[in-house]
């Protein structure tokens, strides 16, 4: 029995999420008194993988087959299954991001594992095994018992944090035994966002709603995001209008995020919007309507005009950073 953490890579790189997963896996293993290992699929430098030791991962299985870059759901699930067999893993931990959501259900069937997605924190109890997760788009939490011996947990980014626990990491080369014919996804083109903080990774998010009035008005909002090192988001009508890209849409039908700080500029705070952001640690709302429901969800608020507040925020942040 052991805990296995799936560490994905982005063009050979790891990010904070990878270390957060390592931290979670190591803490979970400690709680269960089981060994923990990680598995990496695709080409990643040895030195990069060794960084996982800082967060308590003593061994990483690394299969450097480049075909994993096609993100073929079924091939990755097969490879992870091979890794669980090799490590006698009974619990697998991975991210609740696009790839994790795609492969965890397939792996769950192979392992006959109970799967809980987007868990909050470590299990509440281990015998029986009970975890907590958000349900009804953040309107409630559920305590879920996993009945099966094998288990898979996916962790929502930025909900657990980093826990240092320095250990030496050994790298073990691993061949999951996949053939070229196992990869059936043909990637015609990829469009990667570069040079910007990704919304899913962002610890601070600056978001705009219909109160921003027009696509052309996003300059100051982007400037604030840039000096804060923040990601940018928007409400659904804003992306429906094409003012901002779909990838920025947060809420019930968009992304669910949990940054440390969420700024809502000209967002009314509809229940479907709040579903995507209410797990943020601190919410700041700027809205000219004192009755806007966003103020019920916010920690700090300004009843005022976004176009008067944004320049003041930008100046104040510049001063703070100076």
């Amino acid at each position, binding site marked *: 029995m052991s805990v296995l953490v799936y560490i994905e890579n982005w063009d050979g790189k790891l990010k904070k999420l990878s270390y957060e997963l390592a931290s979670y896996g190591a803490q979970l293993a400690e709680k269960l008194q089981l060994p923990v290992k990680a598995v990496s699929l695709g080409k990643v430098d040895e030195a990069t993988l060794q960084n996982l030791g800082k967060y308590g991962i003593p061994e990483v299985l690394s299969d450097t087959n480049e075909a994993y870059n096609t993100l073929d759901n079924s091939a990755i699930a097969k490879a992870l299954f091979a890794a669980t067999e090799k490590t006698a893993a009974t619990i697998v931990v991975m991210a609740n991001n696009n*790839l994790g959501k795609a492969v965890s259900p*397939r792996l769950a069937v192979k392992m006959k594992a109970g799967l809980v997605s987007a868990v909050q924190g470590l299990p509440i109890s281990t015998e029986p095994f009970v975890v907590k997760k958000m349900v009804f788009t953040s309107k409630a939490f559920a305590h879920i018992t996993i009945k099966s011996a094998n288990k898979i947990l996916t962790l929502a980014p930025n909900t657990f944090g980093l826990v240092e626990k320095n250990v030496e990491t050994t790298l073990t080369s691993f061949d999951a035994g996949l053939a070229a014919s196992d990869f059936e996804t043909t990637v015609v083109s990829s469009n990667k966002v570069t040079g910007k903080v990704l919304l899913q990774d962002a610890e601070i998010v600056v978001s705009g709603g219909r109160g921003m009035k027009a696509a052309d008005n996003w300059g100051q909002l982007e400037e604030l995001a840039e000096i804060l090192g923040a990601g940018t988001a928007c409400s659904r009508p804003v992306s429906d209008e094409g003012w901002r890209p779909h*990838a920025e849409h947060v809420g019930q039908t968009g992304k669910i995020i949990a940054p440390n700080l969420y700024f809502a500029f000209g967002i009314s705070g509809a229940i479907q919007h709040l579903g995507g952001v209410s797990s943020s640690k601190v919410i700041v709302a700027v809205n000219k309507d004192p009755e806007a429901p966003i103020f019920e969800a916010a920690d700090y608020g300004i009843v005022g005009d976004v176009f008067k507040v944004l320049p003041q925020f930008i100046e104040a942040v510049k001063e703070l950073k100076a």
Partner: protein
Amino acid sequence: MKILVLIGNVPDTTTKIKFNADNTAIDASGVQWIINPWDELALTRAMELKEAHVDAVEKIVVANVGRSETEATLRKALAVGADEAIRIDADPLDAFYVASQLAAVAADYDLILAGIENADYNGTAVGGMLAELLERKSVSAVSGIDLEGDLLKISREIDGGSQQLNMSLPLLAVVQKGIAKEPRIPAMRGIMMARKKPLNVIAAADAEALTAFDHFELPPAKAACKMVEEEQAASLIRILHEEAKVL
């Protein structure tokens, strides 16, 4: 080609969620049930594909695992334009149980569309599990699907961007926002026709659930919002730095 669209029956997105006395189940009184928003978009896209490729798409079937009360939601899907509906008569205990039920009816369909999430328990697993049970390819976070001969042209979101893919049938696509612009609303004629369309009820297959809800809790009440004057906006940045310690 035959298309199967999985249909979740979920509380309307504006529902104020309440639980029963011992917090073990949702209190369904006064809840309006709707087609899961992503499934509604999947059905809309399936309709568009059928209209654009009359010769290629033979029929669209919708399927749900639920008790008789979910039939209103299936009838709505028929009114939107699905040709047939299947209800597997069982309580949707967990994703693995639901996927196992669907696996018993889904194998014949060339293209299966599932929503990326159910807006109730926010699981994300039924589509992927069904694909694995059927041993077929799957693509997730799909935001666009087009048909070109035997080829499916797919757009999917990846962590940090998007990709264009070519995929062959049979395929299961787990779809999200963007797959169709606006969900189709049933027209009067559609509602009339839906009454005559087949809604087949199938007995549950033998399957087990691997997880169970223990109980629910509501999030803690939020403290009142601290207000700052518009002219003092700069001071809020200080507060975020010194008091909230998030800057």
